[in-house]
């Protein structure tokens, strides 16, 4: 049995690495192989075309037109190399931006380092998620256990989850100020309503016979929840929370645009405004790495906490 299991594990790791390498390979191909995509021409020598400048990106057809024009007029011919639009930087540019982002001290006095901005964002997510869970998890469990409470709360929650959380930004600022309060509120609004429904659903999946048995044996009220329902759904609840944490991350960018500019979003939007897309992609990837990294750790922890639950094994 043992060697096969080992074999399985190494195969799985290989596939996991491959799932990252494949998209990277596609990205490299698109970036480095000149005849794949490359709809633009980067001018290297402007020649006789008055508005061309070295480093300018021009459409291929336009470049051809202007070259023909230069030939007809007997002007110096421009030259250039195939290039991608500015919106798609090459992998090595992003890697470099990634490095300098962390290593370089910010030019502005008192400006936060990239890791400080990032830490600020992580705190926003953390508090948003904790606050949402404090309300969402108990409410979800109650709604899942008691049918009448479920019917009272879930239709509204179901309705509310479709409302766009960022649209409450101005209201959140009016109530909670301009700093972290409204940002955390947006994360909560974005996460809470999904959380209630998902947790309630998970609770309902607990086998009815278990609850029946507990009731028959005289368990009622609070004890039914703490001794039967919660222990019964704990592994699934844990997995739900993992998924919901990822959900919270997706609200970060809109949340941080509300109130004063801060965190990683400030970095991303500002760099995008001045078209430094290498920095933008580097920052986006950092978010991915943190999110994915946290989830890996939580998954591993889940296997430790709930060794009897086979579904925790699946990543």
């Amino acid at each position, binding site marked *: 049995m043992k060697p096969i299991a080992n074999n399985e594990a190494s195969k799985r790791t290989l596939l996991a690495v491959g799932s990252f390498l494949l998209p990277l390979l596609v990205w490299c191909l698109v970036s480095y192989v000149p005849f794949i995509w490359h709809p633009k021409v980067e001018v290297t020598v402007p020649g006789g075309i008055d508005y061309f400048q070295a480093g300018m990106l021009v459409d291929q057809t336009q470049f051809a037109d202007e070259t023909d024009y230069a030939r007809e007029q007997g002007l110096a011919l421009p030259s250039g190399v195939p290039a991608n639009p500015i919106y798609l930087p090459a992998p090595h540019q992003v890697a470099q931006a990634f490095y300098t982002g962390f290593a370089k001290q910010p030019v502005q006095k008192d400006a936060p380092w990239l890791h400080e901005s990032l830490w600020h964002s992580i705190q926003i997510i953390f508090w948003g998620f904790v606050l949402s869970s404090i309300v969402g998890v108990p409410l979800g469990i109650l709604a899942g256990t008691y049918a009448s409470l479920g019917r009272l709360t879930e239709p509204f929650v179901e309705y509310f989850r479709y409302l766009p959380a960022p649209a409450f930004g101005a209201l959140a600022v009016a109530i909670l100020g301009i700093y972290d309060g409204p940002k955390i509120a947006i994360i909560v609004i974005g996460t809470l309503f999904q959380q209630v429904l998902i947790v309630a659903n998970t609770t309902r999946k607990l086998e009815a016979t278990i609850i029946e048995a507990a009731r028959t044996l005289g368990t009622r009220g609070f004890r039914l929840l703490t001794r039967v329902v919660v222990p019964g759904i704990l592994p699934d609840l844990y997995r739900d929370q993992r998924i919901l944490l990822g959900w919270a991350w997706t609200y970060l960018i809109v949340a941080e645009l509300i109130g*004063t500019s801060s965190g990683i979003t400030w970095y991303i939007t500002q760099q995008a405004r001045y078209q430094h897309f290498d920095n933008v992609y580097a920052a986006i990837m950092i978010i991915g790495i943190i999110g994915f990294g946290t989830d890996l750790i939580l998954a591993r922890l889940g296997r430790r906490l709930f060794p009897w639950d086979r579904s925790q094994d699946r990543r």
Partner: protein
Amino acid sequence: MNLKHLGSTMKRLLTRVILPATAAVAFSAHAAQPLKIGYSDWPGWVAWQVAIDKGWFKEAGVPVNFEWFDYTASMDAFSASKIDAVTMTNGDALVTGAAGGKSVMVMLTDYSNGNDMIIGKPGVRSLKALKGKKVAVEMGFVEHLLLLNGLKKAGMKESDVTLVNAKTNEMPQMLASGDVAAVGAWQPIAGQAIKAVPGARPIYTSADEPGLIYDVLAVNPASAKQRKADWVKVVKVWDRVVKYINDPKTQPDAVKIMSARVGVSPETYLPLLKGTKLLSLDEARKIYVKGDGFKTLQGSTKISDQFNVANDVYKAAQDVDSYLDASFTNAK
């Protein structure tokens, strides 16, 4: 606990805890609370960074707290009374005021001097060439006003072109698509549009009509009244900022500070600064007078008001004069 009991508890909580607390906060605000000012990414406002970094507010003896925002978010925060003042255009001061966030423009920071532009696609060299064509602008915003102003000067009407409504941020892509003959955008987005579509050129800019768009420091009326002396000090600091930026000897240092604030290199930032005419106090005093047309703040703001009403930005005309108070700028 019955409902009545709950009600009286709430009332007690209100009178014993919350009201005294708010009173205390309001009282201490009188003492030495820093003035909270929201600013955002426009050269005329980033200029404040020079004074912040150099510690000039401390020297002037006025406690301030500058908070960096996205432009729209800064106006939201001002409307919600979370900050005492905000940097915005005179037109947006009216828009914000119509929605309840009334303000007093205590001073002018600058006017756009080329940073706002209508950009024609390759081959389009003048506004006249736009007749019967599509033009993309963000309706109700300054570029829309700029276009109308230009068309009028060229002897044309709004109906001579087909307006396409689009977000200013997306103008580079709009122009690149080739579906429209021209787009309206401000810097740095305008620069991106020109760079993205080689051969595209500005055909009408705010430099052709200086004063179309004034940028101001708009203050919450209550704060303007209660802390007038402090605001006058802030206005004085501005004069020092303008001198520092305009002096060729100190300009490189100023540009370094400003470009660092927005996260670009000084070389990238310099052209944006050139498209903005920063106003010293002396220059501002000549504009902050009564009069019609774009040469005065009053005239420009009135035109802006008419434009806003005509385009349904808000329903009823605003009392423009209630937004104006030149005494801060004129204070000796």
